């Protein structure tokens, strides 16, 4: 009889399918995984500590460095928490509110196209990567035109947004919105409907409804497991209660569902932006906020529907110009806890797909 032994395999931190500098140690019995241990922290910059040494306004650009695929929404979550703390949530001008929604949804499209791209790359489909990046770049061009930066926009302000956009920008946006449904059909034809793709990802990494809630999934990952919950619809923040959109759900919570939910979500984002640009009024883009931001003593927690899930900030103020404590509740960090549970017993090649399917960004995992 042949002698066999367990193999310990180190994956990462420099590995293309770990989406950054994530490392995991896998114990393998042949091709099957018996144990996974996550190692995070390679990108830890201590943002929560840094926030305590910055004024409220100074910390806005740092948020782009959290989840660097959806900078706009990170900033939105942060400024909305500070606004809640200051009690000026109602004073944000209408035009700024609409611009926030348009930018958030544009960013969601940019973030989800990255997901489509990296997911197809992880299962060795390079063509899908190219198609998705083509559309992502158009969304990023618009963000750059509005804010001056492609990925770290620094666009949201406490009390409004930094810059207004003109007619030309809207016509560019309209062109993207007109083309986007066809592009999404293209993804569906090229990737989602592809038989090889389906054979590869269906029934892999199943996360049931109960399990998804228990391990703290949120956003698209939670909805892929069939939980009908979307903060934009259920607890609308900003002006999201004015838009009509569907919340796509998955059926059994496998990697295929997590992929399809995101494609469907992009269609809804296009839908929301279309409604927003129809209604956007003229007017100021900044509320009258003090030059020096000094929230009253107290604390606030606010959560928004980020592209990866619920992104929340818990800010404690001692009445000075700097926050006493800033806690960043990161969806990727919590979701990543699912990997050792789900990957156990899987094939090694399926573990790569499983990890890719929850859309982690290490900037946000490690903070």
């Amino acid at each position, binding site marked *: 009889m042949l002698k066999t032994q367990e193999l310990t395999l180190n994956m990462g931190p420099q590995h293309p399918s770990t989406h950054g500098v994530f490392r995991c140690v896998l114990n393998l019995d042949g091709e099957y995984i018996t144990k996974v241990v996550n190692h995070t922290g390679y990108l830890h910059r201590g943002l929560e500590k840094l926030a305590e040494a910055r004024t409220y306004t100074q910390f806005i650009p740092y948020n782009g460095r959290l989840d660097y695929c959806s900078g706009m929404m990170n900033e939105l979550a942060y400024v909305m928490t500070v606004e809640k703390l200051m009690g000026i949530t109602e004073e944000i001008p209408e035009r700024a509110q609409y611009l926030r929604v348009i930018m958030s949804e544009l960013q969601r499209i940019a973030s989800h196209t990255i997901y489509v791209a990296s997911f197809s790359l992880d299962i060795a489909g390079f063509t899908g990567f190219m198609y998705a990046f083509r559309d992502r770049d158009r969304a990023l061009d618009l963000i750059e035109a509005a804010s001056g930066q492609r990925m770290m926009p620094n666009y949201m302000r406490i009390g409004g947004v930094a810059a207004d956009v003109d007619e030309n920008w809207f016509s560019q946006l309209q062109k993207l919105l007109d083309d986007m449904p066809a592009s999404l059909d293209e993804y569906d034809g090229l990737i989602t409907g592809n038989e090889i793709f389906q054979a590869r990802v269906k029934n892999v990494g199943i996360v049931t409804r109960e399990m998804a*809630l228990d391990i703290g999934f949120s956003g698209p990952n939670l909805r892929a497991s069939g939980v009908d*919950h979307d903060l934009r619809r*259920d*607890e609308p923040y900003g002006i999201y209660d004015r838009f009509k959109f569907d919340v796509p759900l998955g059926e059994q919570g496998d990697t295929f569902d997590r992929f399809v939910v995101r494609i469907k979500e992009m269609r809804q984002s296009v839908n929301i932006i279309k409604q927003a640009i129809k209604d956007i009024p003229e007017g100021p883009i900044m509320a009258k906020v003090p030059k020096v931001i000094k929230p*009253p003593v107290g604390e606030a927690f606010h959560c928004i529907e980020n592209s990866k899930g619920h992104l929340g900030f818990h800010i404690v103020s001692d009445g000075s110009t700097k926050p006493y*404590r800033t806690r960043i509740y990161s969806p990727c*960090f*919590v979701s990543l806890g699912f990997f050792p549970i789900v990957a156990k017993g899987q094939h090694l090649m399926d573990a790569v797909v499983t990890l890719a399917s929850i859309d982690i960004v290490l900037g946000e995992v490690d*903070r």
Partner: protein
Amino acid sequence: MDKIVDREALVGELNQKLGNCAEIFEDNTNQSIKVKPEKIVGVMKELRDNPKYDFKALMNLSSVDYPENFTVVYHLNSISYYHKLTVKVELDKAKPEVQSITSVWTAANVQEREAYDLMGIIFTGHPNLKRILLADDWVGHPLRKDFKLQA
């Protein structure tokens, strides 16, 4: 506006079921209750399983270093009623120890490890209480106020 749980009824029910363990915590959010550290697991189980409250998922687990104590803050959000509740646990400065709620929600596992790593709070009964973001040989807990920021 956030939908908030009726705190008086909740605190009454918790105290009746689990013995004297909870009280209303007054702060600017008006959605906090304070729970004794040794009763936290029972309270969280009750909040999860009681159909009236139905907090099926834990959201945020935060910790604050106040001058007088360490406070662990649990933000709960029900996905069926959409109401919110903040549970606070105040811990002794010299010995910040609280029961781990990993047995209630697996989501607490990584967040408790982070609170241990960065704030130095001991979660008793945690299956794997090790540093998660910093290196294993790191000295100190950076988010404490006595840890000075160095350039």
